[in-house]
């Protein structure tokens, strides 16, 4: 956890409305009492640059850039452990989804690699209605860093040998495409 020990809050840009703008029950982050239960419960905290407890304090303080550029939200595996254990009843895991949305909207560097994962996944859902593992991986690696693909080669080979991954492309694409539905959702989101 490489967050600075001391931060001069008079010298950094802050947006106190940050958590209110997040969506969902983001404003409940103001209830946080810094007990640290979230960090202690988080299976990924050791790999994060800012621990969950620190991140929630930074959200309260409106340290938008620092939060959105940290790796914390992208390391969250949505295990819901912090959310069910938080003594203040803050929907932490769900608020992390809103943080990801915000980071992706603002096209931040931190979101490039992990954001590619979500966009690739959504593309496949939109076109085929179901997620085809092989096509999904190919799209993901094209959108993100192609070097990551090497890490998967070994597992991919074993999976193909065991008949776990299908190489054929879906033929019934028209039948199940969610193109219309995705477009409608985008229109409704734009209205709001």
């Amino acid at each position, binding site marked *: 956890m490489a967050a600075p020990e001391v931060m001069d809050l008079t010298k950094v840009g802050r947006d106190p409305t940050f958590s209110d703008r997040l969506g969902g029950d983001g404003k409940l982050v103001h209830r946080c009492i810094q007990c640290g239960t979230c960090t202690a419960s988080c299976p990924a905290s050791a790999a994060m640059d800012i621990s969950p407890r620190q991140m929630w304090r930074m959200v309260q303080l409106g340290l938008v850039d620092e939060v959105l550029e940290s790796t914390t939200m992208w390391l969250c595996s949505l295990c819901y452990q912090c959310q069910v254990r938080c003594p203040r009843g803050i929907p932490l*895991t769900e608020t992390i989804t809103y943080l990801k949305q915000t980071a992706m909207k603002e096209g931040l560097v931190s979101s490039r690699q992990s954001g590619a994962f979500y966009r690739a996944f959504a593309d496949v859902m939109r076109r085929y209605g179901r*997620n085809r593992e092989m096509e999904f991986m190919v799209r993901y690696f094209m959108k993100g860093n192609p070097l990551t693909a090497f890490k998967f080669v070994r597992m991919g080979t074993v999976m193909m040998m065991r008949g776990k991954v299908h190489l054929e492309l879906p033929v019934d694409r028209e039948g199940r495409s969610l193109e219309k539905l995705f477009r409608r959702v985008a229109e409704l*989101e734009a209205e709001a």
Partner: protein
Amino acid sequence: MRYLFYPGCSLDGSALEYKRSMTAVLEALGSEVAEIPEWTCCGASAASVVSDLLGHVLPARNLALAEQIDEDMTIIAACSACYANFRRTGQAVQADPALLERINRALEVEDLTYRGKAQVRHLMDVLANDFSTEEIEARVERPLTGLVVAPYYGCQTVRPFSPYDDDQAPTSMPPILEALSATVHRHNREASCCGTSVLMTKQEAGVSMVAEVLDGCDGADCLAAICPMCQLNMEGYQDRASKVLGRQVNLPVLFLPQLMGLAFGLSDDVLMLERHMVPVTPVLSRLQQAAPAAAG
């Protein structure tokens, strides 16, 4: 019992053995299982990151299809991520009727209406609570005597929606495993996360989650999984996790219905044990060792 079933993308792809074995096991227990026709992806963890509404519309589309068939019939979800998405949308529309209206304005283009009635339950819940251990035991033809099994629920099976079990220390699996005459290896990582998609986006962090779970299961002959993501990650990253742990781990990871099917004497074409990336041979030879001893 009659159930509707939502397989989800994994059960139609990499986890086909899960789908086959669960259907066969439920049928062996006297139930009927009908797949929701024309189902589509529930949105996984991606849709709600792309857009709030999309994150609800994708699960709702499938719930609307199920309601068209019979709105009172229980829908089984066997993938924990699908399960959590369905429960999340179900709960959100209860709390916010305006959201239900918005969802339905989107579903109009598919000529579907979601009424907010469909009831989704996890396969774990159904197996543990719709059948008595006596019913399960009565179906056993080949007891799993001598086989040490570590239950592994993962996270979203019991969190944050766990109307049927404890979200920290679940207890749904042991009675079933005991009814199969297996020995249960309790450990403190039963409801820990498998790393899910973090293994795709930030692999090193994900691998250490896998390592912790496998370490907890040390001493068992195999794991019993009840989610396709858990199963895939525990198998697929076992070699990398072994490096983290500094010892070679060789733990077969079976789906709970495969273990039940094995004990029920179901055929190879529904169990599909040859599909596993970590070979299940040690499990089978353990059972062969135990068989003559049990007979003697």
